[in-house]
């Protein structure tokens, strides 16, 4: 690829950010194949992974003429620091609670940004996004179903889900880290809404849904301090407080303020988790360039 193809066309940065998110989280989802807690979920995560990778492929295909590289080369032929996904996507699955919390936070974020991009001035992107969104609806429903089930479930289920939210929510905000090319994208209408505004929309929605399950405290306090089984005297031990950087409550609404943790992914800054994932994901492509199935 050219030294800095992004400088030439800001649309590439936007496409890669979303496509890389889908590819990398799809790869993580696929790791449940054969290992999920039960067969239904094995199938669910395998299918969601298949969808996400297909959506990534569609966006890479859209990027082909912009990047001057083919979709496979974009998906698998880049160095690890050239990937533009948010760090939350590369994190290992940890446990079932974290997996579902992340899927909920990610797919809600995906819905918020895709809804905006349906209005993109770039027609091919708007068309692709409309098609993708008709399928993403099922991912969102899967996430919501588990949200309700775990939040309303027995103590341990609820606790582990909330711990998952606690671990994921800070980094999930960085799904809305602006790409450096955002001003140009906003000006041309390719990106109709700024990431700052999309983040606000996402946080309001997530905050409201957490609040409906009496879980919004997780944005300011450690889950372990609140979800413990009450003692025989009915007391719950108070724990240390935590506040997720960049989140605060104002006039009864959860809002975003200023900088937030976990940023950097959109500029290619990733963690050791991605180094390992990249090795595995691109291994075949690097070993046998040009291989066909």
């Amino acid at each position: 690829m050219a030294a800095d193809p992004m400088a030439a066309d800001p649309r590439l940065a936007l496409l890669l950010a979303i496509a890389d998110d889908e590819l990398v989280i799809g790869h993580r989802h696929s790791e449940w194949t054969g290992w999920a807690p039960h067969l239904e979920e094995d199938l669910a995560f395998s299918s969601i992974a298949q969808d996400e990778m297909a959506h990534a492929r569609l966006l890479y295909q859209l990027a082909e003429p912009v990047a001057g590289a083919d979709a496979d080369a974009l998906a698998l032929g880049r160095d690890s620091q050239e990937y533009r996904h948010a760090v939350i996507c590369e994190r290992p699955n940890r446990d079932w609670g974290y997996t579902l919390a992340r899927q909920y936070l990610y797919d809600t974020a995906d819905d918020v940004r895709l809804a905006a991009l349906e209005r993109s001035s770039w027609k091919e992107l708007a068309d692709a996004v409309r098609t993708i969104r008709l399928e993403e609806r099922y991912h969102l429903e899967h996430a919501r179903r588990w949200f309700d089930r775990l939040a309303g479930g027995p103590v341990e289920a609820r606790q582990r889900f909330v711990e998952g939210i606690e671990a994921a929510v800070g980094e999930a905000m960085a799904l809305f880290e602006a790409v450096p090319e955002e001003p140009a994208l906003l000006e041309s209408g390719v990106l109709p809404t700024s990431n700052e505004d999309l983040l606000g929309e996402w946080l309001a929605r997530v905050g409201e849904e957490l609040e409906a399950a009496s879980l919004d405290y997780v944005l300011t306090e450690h889950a372990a301090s609140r979800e413990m089984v009450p003692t025989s005297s009915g007391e719950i031990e108070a724990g240390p407080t935590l506040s997720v950087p960049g989140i605060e409550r104002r006039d009864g609404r959860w809002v975003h303020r200023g900088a937030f943790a976990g940023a950097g992914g959109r500029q290619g800054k990733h963690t050791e988790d991605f180094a390992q994932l990249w090795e595995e994901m691109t291994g075949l492509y690097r070993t046998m360039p040009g291989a066909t199935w």
Partner: protein
Amino acid sequence: MVRTLEDRVRRALGEVVDPEIPACTIEDLGMIHRVAVSEAEVEVDLLPTFVGCPAKDVIGEDTEAAVRAVAGGRDVRVRFVLDPAWTTDRITERGRSRLREYGIAPHWERPSGATVVPLLRPGGVPCPYCGSTETVMESAWGPSPCRARHYCPSCRNPFEGFKSKEPTGA
């Protein structure tokens, strides 16, 4: 002359089946968006059903081969396009009855407010075997991206249903 060529092309397209659902042709599934015939070439625009459909590439190749066979040496171009977005209401009446015969419930109108949560409620997707509507969607995920899995307590058969993809208001 040209008109009869278009007829031949359309007839050829009517023979191309979905390898994952061999009971249905791409015409039955409403995947043919546009056919354009000129002296020099034949163009066919197809709509993909689900983006991750593993049969998509095969359908593209089969379509191209079927058209080439009747195109009399003209250039043949088969493309997948995304405008309009494919939705389940594009499946034809014949497609719906062929799906049913094959054991896959065609898309149905979801009662408002219903979700994919597996709850037994009236107004479920009609069972392709006994017609009961008191069925349960067990999972939105089936053997392919376009199919969900259901269960019919009336005749005690598990069955598959075409996943609905409804037009959005926008």
